[in-house]
């Protein structure tokens, strides 16, 4: 199975950590293999066109920003 590349874009705030937890839960629920990276460098975040953190990028594409989404909301995004 193909490994999904997931990036959490956030500067280390509580919300960003919550998003990381939710994302890992979503990955585990679906029995997927994914590589989850937490990007904290604000310049890197800006380069991806994101202005409100936390944001979630899957395989290099930003799929959510500015809010914490639940594992249930993340799962359909992972299945694309």
């Amino acid at each position, binding site marked *: 199975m193909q490994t999904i590349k997931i990036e959490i874009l*956030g*500067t*280390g*705030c*509580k*919300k960003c950590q*919550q998003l990381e937890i939710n994302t890992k839960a979503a990955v585990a629920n679906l029995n997927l293999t994914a590589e989850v990276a937490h990007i904290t460098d*604000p*310049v890197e*975040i*800006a*380069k*991806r*066109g*994101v*202005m*409100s*953190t936390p944001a979630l990028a899957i395989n290099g594409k*930003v*799929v*959510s*920003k*500015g*809010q*914490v989404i639940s594992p249930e909301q993340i799962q359909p995004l992972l299945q694309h």
Partner: protein
Amino acid sequence: MFDPFYPFDWLATQIVTQLLGLSITSHLGSSLHFFLYDVPKVLTLLIVISFLVGTFQSFLEPERVRFLLQGKRTFVGNILAAMVGIVTPFCSCSAVPLFIGFLEAGVPLGVTFSYLMAAPMVNEVAVILLWGLFGLKVTLIYIGFGVSLAIASGYVIGRLKLEKWVEPFVWELQKARQVTSLEDADTLEPVTFTWRQRFEQGQFQSSEIVRSVWLYVVLGIAIGAGIHGYVPTDFITRYAGASNPLAVPIAVILGVPLYANIAGVLPITEALVNKGMSMGTVLAFTMAVTALSLPEMVILKKVLRTQLLAVFVGLMTVGIISIGYIFNALLT
């Protein structure tokens, strides 16, 4: 005038006089009343307002703000930026992505700065505390002066043409964007929130804020209560009153390292104001705590040359100190 906080006052008075049998004018009685009145009042305000702000912030995403401010060159842009700064929530952690995102899309540097100054100064915690502790009038004055300062400073930075002191990679990003355009970032489908989701965000925001500040609030109010009941008035008036010309600058300097502890410090200043500390000094102090925060400076250093950071800090410092003096002069 209608006092929305009357029930809190009534309850605190009942507890002190009826339950504990203390006189409200005694040292211990007035201290206890201060504590029992302020703690529930401030915590209630914090919970309710941060919930509302968290719920409605999903209507004003930074992308929408950026679109509003794009290409606005003149004074109008600065005014608009500062006004939008009032209503958008701000976290110093997103200052850099916002800064780059604005410049990239062609929002002028001065206009970007007006936004960056107004947004943290008029943040929900500071506004809630000012309203709860000092009343609506003081809060509106604070917002008014804060926004004017953000407009004026941003305008000055715009006129000085300081673009050369922004780290060059920001402009390279801007150029790259003009070629590939923002299409890529904007292909993200606009998320449509249900009310349920908005309320969830509000609840998250509220519990987050309350969890991070409640201890400071309670401790600050406890110290304030002690001052309220036991410290003699002439002592405070002599050192922090309007007659001491050094009070304002000292308050501003003290405010800089206190970032995020505004929740604990404002209740102390409330007690000091009751004892004769002047209001302008408090306003200047609050602005210094919110607008001149050290962590934000450190973060902004990533995109700004030291010279521009110095201009930013200098303009704000001079502006805040002036506001303190003006306000003290107007009131005395």
